[in-house]
């Protein structure tokens, strides 16, 4: 195993040395704990559920490729056309039309166990994109890639202003206080629960920012697991921030 990978027990013992570019592996890290770890130790990536940690090491070594081809970097893509949806949208694109296209792609029964969740994640990603795009002509690439085991959904913009800290803090508030209390205390439109939802619905989320080049949010999940089971699963959380170019 790569020296870039540390086991959680060693991390807790403090025998890991520098955390820079390290990946922490711990199958028993609960979702709220993963968020806390990511906030407290920002170079650190938390991998659970047997996800291939070396894959993340490779991704960190070539962020540009990950921004452009998240599906290829995370799962084995099949050539089956019915397993891939990819489309460019603009900040002034109609959300109704966008979701209609997503629903059309997901109507196959092979997506029946993830359909509602992918619809919700797509809605949240589109809403986040339109909020962060300062101009209506700014665009993003939205995609859904699937193979027999895994389906992933992503949104990639080309301006790179996504703020991972803000997303993580929103998620942390929902884990710590519960959604109802987060709503009571927050006067904002969504109280930040969108980030919490998209993290909770999948089994892994990667937030990648390369300033000036783009941002990418990817969520992946087992295609055949029921919603109720997925929500209860531990989750990987990958935060990658590139340097100013």
């Amino acid at each position, binding site marked *: 195993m790569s020296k870039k990978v540390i086991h959680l027990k060693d991390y807790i013992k403090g025998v890991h040395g520098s955390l820079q570019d390290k990946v922490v592996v711990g199958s028993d890290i609960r979702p709220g704990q993963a968020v806390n770890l990511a906030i407290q130790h920002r170079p650190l990536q938390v991998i659970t559920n047997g996800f291939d940690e070396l894959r993340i090491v490779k991704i960190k070594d070539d962020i540009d490729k990950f921004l452009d081809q998240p599906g290829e970097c995370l799962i084995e893509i099949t050539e089956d056309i019915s397993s891939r949806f990819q489309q460019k949208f603009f900040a002034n694109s109609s959300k109704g039309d966008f*979701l209609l296209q997503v629903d059309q792609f997901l109507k196959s*029964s092979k997506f*029946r*166990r993830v359909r*509602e*969740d992918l*619809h*919700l994640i797509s*809605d*949240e990603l589109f*809403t986040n994109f339109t909020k962060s795009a300062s101009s209506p002509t700014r665009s993003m690439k939205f995609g859904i890639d699937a193979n027999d085991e895994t389906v992933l959904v992503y949104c990639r913009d080309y301006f790179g202003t996504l703020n991972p800290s803000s997303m993580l803090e929103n998620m942390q508030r929902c884990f710590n206080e*519960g*959604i*109802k209390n987060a*709503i009571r205390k927050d006067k904002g*439109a*969504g*109280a930040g*629960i*969108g980030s*919490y*939802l998209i993290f*909770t619905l999948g089994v892994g989320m990667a937030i990648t920012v390369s300033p000036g080049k783009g941002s990418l949010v990817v969520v992946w999940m087992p295609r055949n697991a*029921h*919603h*109720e*089971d997925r*929500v*209860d699963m531990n989750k990987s959380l990958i935060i990658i921030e590139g340097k100013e170019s």
Partner: protein
Amino acid sequence: MAFEVQQGQIDNNLLLMLVGDIDEEAVFPSLKNLTGEIYIDLKSVSSINSIGIRAWILWFGEMASVKFNFINCPKAMVMQMNMVEGFLPQGAQVKTLQVPFYCENCDEEKDIVFEVGKEIQIQGGQILLKFDKDRVCGPGCEPELDVNESKYFRFLINGGQSQAA
């Protein structure tokens, strides 16, 4: 689909039928002064997002003295009932909900409405399902319940809902 709330009556009680997507465009009517018992029909709710969840929780929070009965709850709403603590108002009862099935023979998905106390029995903190498979799909078919039975109905137990819903 644009959100709207249609009014009707059921058993001499006010019935509110929620229709469409519960999202940033959804405007809930102001019903702060209502009391008594109200039925909420969710059959035509197609989706709910985070902004819709916030609006939903705040709207029901304004009507603390109302007893709500939910009917025809689709999977997208049942998912939130299980996942978001406080999504169902205090003391609310879910009367009927859609239960997803899948028939491999026909490659068809079917949402069948189950009634709490009839097809869904709550006994000693456990959920028991009693239904006729022939009602779900054709004769000879073996439709499978397409949710995790022990978790999909968990909100009924966690919410302390009684059998006599």
